C-alpha cells in the first residue's frame, strides 16, 4: 500500500496547486501574526481561515484529484492490488500532502508566534479538519460517477458544514429556547466536524467565557481535559467514517 502512496504523494507534492496552497497559508499566517503584536488576535483570525478556507480547499482539491486520478486508479486496479489498498493509498497520499501543506503553512508560523497549548490545539484541530474533509471528498467522489456532480456534492457538503449548519442550530435555539437544550447542543455540535474543531480551539481560547455556563453538563464538559478528549475523538470519527464508507462503496464499484 505505501508503495503506491509514495508515488501519489510525490505526484501531489510537485503539484503547483498544493505548493500555492502552502504558500497562501504561510502568507496569511505570517501576515496575521505580523500585523498585530497581540498573538491572540492572530490566532483568532487564523481560526476563521481554518474553519472556512481549509475545509473548502481540502474538499475541492481532493475531489478534483480523485477524478483526475481515475485512469490511474484503473491502471492500478489491473495490477495485483486489492481495491482497498488502492483506495486507501490514494486517500493517504492526498491527506498527507494537504496535511503537510497545512503544517508548513499554518503550523510553523503558529509555533513561531504562539507556540503555546492554544497554538498546538489550533494546529491539531486544523489538521483533523483537513483529514476529515479529504475523507468527505473521497466519499462524495465515489458516490457520484460524474465529475461535475461530484464537485457539486463536495461544494454542498462544505457549504452545509461551514455556513448553513450553525445558522440552522441558531434557528433551533431560537425556536426552542424554552427547553433545556444543553445535551442537544453538545449532540448537534458532534454532528459537524467544523463545529468540533471550533469547540476544541474555544476550550483553549475562551475557557473563561465557556465556564460561564450554569449548566452542569457544560461545566463538566468544558472544565476538564475530558471535553477536549471527547471532541478530539469525535473529530477523529469524522475522519474515519466517511473514508471507511467510501472504501466499502469503492470495493464494489464498477470502474
Amino acid at each position, binding site marked *: 500500500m505505501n508503495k503506491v502512496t509514495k508515488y501519489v504523494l510525490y505526484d501531489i507534492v510537485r503539484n503547483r496547486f498544493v505548493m500555492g496552497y502552502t504558500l497562501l497559508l504561510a502568507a496569511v499566517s505570517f501576515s496575521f501574526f505580523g500585523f498585530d503584536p*497581540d498573538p491572540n488576535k492572530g490566532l483568532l483570525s487564523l481560526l476563521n481561515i481554518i474553519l472556512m478556507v481549509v475545509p473548502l480547499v481540502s474538499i475541492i482539491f481532493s475531489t478534483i484529484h480523485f477524478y483526475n486520478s481515475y485512469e490511474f486508479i484503473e491502471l492500478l486496479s489491473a495490477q495485483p492490488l486489492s481495491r482497498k489498498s488502492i483506495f486507501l493509498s490514494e486517500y493517504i497520499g492526498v491527506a498527507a500532502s494537504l496535511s503537510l501543506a497545512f503544517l508548513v503553512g499554518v503550523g510553523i508560523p503558529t509555533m513561531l508566534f504562539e507556540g503555546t497549548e492554544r497554538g498546538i490545539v489550533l494546529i491539531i484541530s486544523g489538521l483533523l479538519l483537513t483529514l476529515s474533509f479529504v475523507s468527505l471528498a473521497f466519499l462524495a467522489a465515489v458516490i457520484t460517477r460524474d465529475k461535475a456532480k461530484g464537485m457539486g456534492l463536495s461544494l454542498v457538503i462544505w457549504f452545509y458544514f461551514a455556513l448553513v449548519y450553525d445558522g440552522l442550530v441558531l434557528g433551533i435555539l431560537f425556536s426552542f429556547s424554552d427547553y433545556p437544550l444543553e445535551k442537544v*447542543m453538545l449532540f448537534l*455540535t458532534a454532528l459537524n466536524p467544523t*463545529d468540533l474543531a471550533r469547540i476544541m480551539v474555544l476550550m483553549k481560547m475562551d475557557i473563561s467565557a465557556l465556564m460561564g455556563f450554569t449548566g452542569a453538563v457544560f461545566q463538566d464538559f468544558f472544565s476538564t481535559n475530558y471535553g477536549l478528549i471527547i471532541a478530539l475523538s469525535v473529530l477523529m470519527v469524522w475522519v474515519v467514517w466517511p473514508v471507511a464508507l467510501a472504501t466499502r462503496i469503492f470495493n464494489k464499484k464498477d470502474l
Partner: protein
Amino acid sequence: MSVLFHSLLLDHRVSPSFTRSHKKYPQHFSVQSCGFKTPRKAVSENGYAPAFSFLLFVCLNATFFLTSFSAQARTWKISPTQNFKRAVEQALPYDTLLIHKGLYRINNIIIDKPLTLIGQNFPVLDGQFKNEIFTITANDVTIQGLHFENVGMTSMIDWAAIKVLESRHVRIIGNRVRNSYFGIYLSASDHCLVQENDVRGNPKEEQNTGNGIHAWKCDSIRVENNRVAGHRDGIYFEFVTNSIIQRNFSHQNIRYGLHFMFSHKNGYFYNTFRQNGAGVAVMYTKFVTMKHNIFEQNWGGAAYGLLLKDISDSHIEQNTFNINTIGVYMEGCSRSVFSHNQFIKNGYAIRVQANCDDNTLVYNNFKGNTFDVATNGNVVLTKVAHNYWDKYEGYDLNRDGIGDVPFRPVSLYASVIERIPQAMMLLRSFTVTLLDRIEKIIPSITPESMKDESPMMKPIVYRKK
C-alpha cells in the same frame, strides 16, 4: 539560687515571685529553666560560677535594650514542658512571653491584658479541634511568629485561631494558621494590625470552614501582606470602616477571595485575588477605593473577578482583571469611576445590570476578552470614553491617537447569549461573525447609548509601581 531551682523543678511553672526578685536576670532564669539538673550541679558544687556569670553578662547585654523600654516589662521564656495557660495568667501587663520551638497542646487561652507573645522558630500551638486557641480581650496585645493549628469547629460559635474582642492596637504579625475554622477574627476592635500572616485551611465544603481573616464592626485596621487560602472567604469584612487592606494574596478559597458588606471608606491596594470559588464580592458599601489589585482566574457560572452589588461613589482604578469568567459584574452600582484598569482574556470584561447608573468608564484597556461588555438592558453608563478596545476596527485620519468612529462594545451575539445561554456553543462560528458584522454596520438591537465615542488606537500605558 539552688532554692529557686528547686521551686522551679517542683511545679515546672514560671514563678512570678521568683522573677520579680531577680528582675535583672530574666535571661538567666530562662537559660536555667531549659536544662534543669546539670546546671544546678555545675553552679552550686563545681564552682563554675565565674564563667557562668560572664555568660550571663553577655546575655544580659543582649536583652537589656528590650527590657529597658519599660521598667516594669519583663521577658519570659516558655518551653513545651511548662503550663502555657498558667504562664499567660501569671504574666503581668506589658510583659513579653518568648515561646520556644515545640508543640503546645493548648486551647481557650484568654489574653486579657496587654502582652507580647513572640514565637521562636514557629512553636506549634495545637488546639486539638477543641475550642479556639487565643481569645484577646485586651488592648495592645502583640502575637507574633506562632504556628496555630487544629481549631475546633462548631456551627454555634465562630471559633478562631486568634480572636480579638473589643480591643484596640492589637498586632498580629507573621503567624501561621493551619487547619482552623476561622483564622484571625477581629470583632468590634479598632486600630489593629494584621500583617504577614499565612492562613491556610483545608478546603472542604463551604459550611465546614470559616473565613481566613474576618473582621466585624472594626475601624481603622490594617490588613497587609497576608496570605490566605482554603477558607470560606479569604478576607471577610462586615461594618469595617476607614481601614487599609494591602498587598495581601488571597487564593483558592472556597467562596470569595475578598468579601465585604457595609464597609465604607476602605482602601484596597496591591492585593491579588486568584482562583477563588466565586472571585471577589463586595456589597452595600460607599466610598470604596480599589487600586492596583489583581483579580484573576476566577471561573464558573457565578464567578466574578469583582462583583459589585450596591456600591456607590467608589474608585476602581489601575486594577488588572485577568482570565475571569466575568471581570467586573455590576449590579445597582452608581457614581463610581473605573479607570486605567486592564481587562485581559476574560469571558466578559464587564457585565452591567440595567439598574446601574452614572458610572464612568475611562482609559481602560480591553484585550483578548471574549466579550467586552454585556448587559441585560439599556444601560446608562454615563461616560464611556478613551478606552482601548482590541476589537476596534476604526481608523484615525487626523492621527491624534483617537479613533474617528465610535466603538460599540456590546455585540449582538452577546445580547443573544443573554437570552439564550446555550448559543455560547456557536461562539466564533461564521454565522455569529456574520451577525455581529451586520449589527456593526446597521445597529438595531445593541444599546444605542453604550458606545465609546473616543476609542484609543493603542493600548493605554500607565506607570507601573
